């Protein structure tokens, strides 16, 4: 616990411009995953947060629904600059990628039917799918390592419902999430394991 709730323990507060440019740099350098860049910038280069503060803020961003990095921009930006800080962080994060991706979208609309492009992209997707499987493996490790518990069951149920049954995500979530939270409430031992997964990832 830090001694003051609203003031971060980091040496100085970034200005709005610094917030904007920090997330701008993170977004353009974050090819293939922006998290390591965000950590490098915020913890190592600028010293705006300690590693623990960063992990805590990022855990929250992961746990909230929606895109993790966008959530993180809001959590981080609002902490240092209120609503304006959140807005400039999002603009910095999303601005350059949006411009780039719009160009790619226009190119794809024109050349997307080209067979060569299709071949290249299908090779990339095969690799991207493998990358995602590896991420899942790393996340699952602490969850499965002990023995089977409710968390294992919930993860498998979510997988089967969405991947095999192809049920709509909102329905699956509305049924599973309260059950999972209730189980975590009544069986905190397994919950502690599950929480470790979260802490281990960033």
């Amino acid at each position, binding site marked *: 616990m830090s001694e003051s709730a609203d003031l971060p323990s980091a040496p100085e507060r970034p200005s709005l411009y610094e917030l904007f440019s920090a997330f701008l740099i993170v977004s353009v350098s974050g090819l293939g995953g922006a998290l390591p860049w965000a950590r490098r910038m915020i913890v190592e280069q600028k010293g705006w947060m300690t590693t623990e503060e960063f992990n805590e803020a990022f855990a*929250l961003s992961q746990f909230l*629904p929606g*895109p993790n990095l966008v959530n993180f921009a809001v959590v981080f930006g609002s902490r240092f600059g209120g609503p304006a800080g959140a807005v400039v962080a999002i603009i910095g994060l999303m601005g350059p990628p949006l411009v780039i991706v719009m160009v790619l979208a226009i190119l794809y609309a024109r050349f997307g039917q080209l067979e060569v492009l299709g071949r290249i992209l*299908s090779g990339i997707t095969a690799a991207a799918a*493998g*990358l995602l499987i590896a991420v899942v493996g790393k996340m699952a490790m602490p969850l499965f390592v002990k023995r089977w518990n409710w968390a294992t069951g919930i993860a498998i149920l979510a997988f089967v419902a969405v991947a095999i049954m192809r049920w709509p*995500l909102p329905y699956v979530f509305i049924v599973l*999430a309260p059950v999972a939270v209730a189980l975590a409430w009544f069986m*905190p031992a397994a919950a502690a394991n599950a929480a470790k997964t979260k802490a281990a990832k960033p």
Partner: protein
Amino acid sequence: MNDNPLLALFAYFAMLSLFAVGGANAAIPEMHRIAVEMMHWMDDRQFVDMFAIAQMSPGPNVIIVTLIGYHVAGFAGAGVATVAMCGPTCVVAFFATRTWDRFKDAPWRIAIQAGLVPVSLGLIAASAFVLARAADKNIYAGVVTAVTVLVAAFTRINPLWLFAGGGVLGLSGWL
């Protein structure tokens, strides 16, 4: 709702944004279900192409919704899809971050967090499954996926090199 593509984009992505625990990668099966199976905005291959483009672009992976939006309704579609996917969750994040810090050690906060971890894990696993099934149309593509899993799990190599390798193999006509 189905008549106006902008309205449909907004409604689906705004809803998705509030249920996608685990981030954009957890939402891939639902995006696929809506864009390909339900609305027939695109076919399997186009969806997978857009995922690949989003992965290779700088910035958050959520940018795939921008590509889907553009495909459906041009610039307006791209803007609407992006705002719908990011807007609601930004508002939630803004208020949650205040509450969260205050209840750092509250049991209900720990239970919520611990309960949602396995849910998001299952959802991301489902994304990986759906993508692998769409991408691995033959044995060679399956091998590329399997090799990527091993390389990503046991080395710290930049994923861009894996994408490049997959792209070159694809170009060579093996996949």
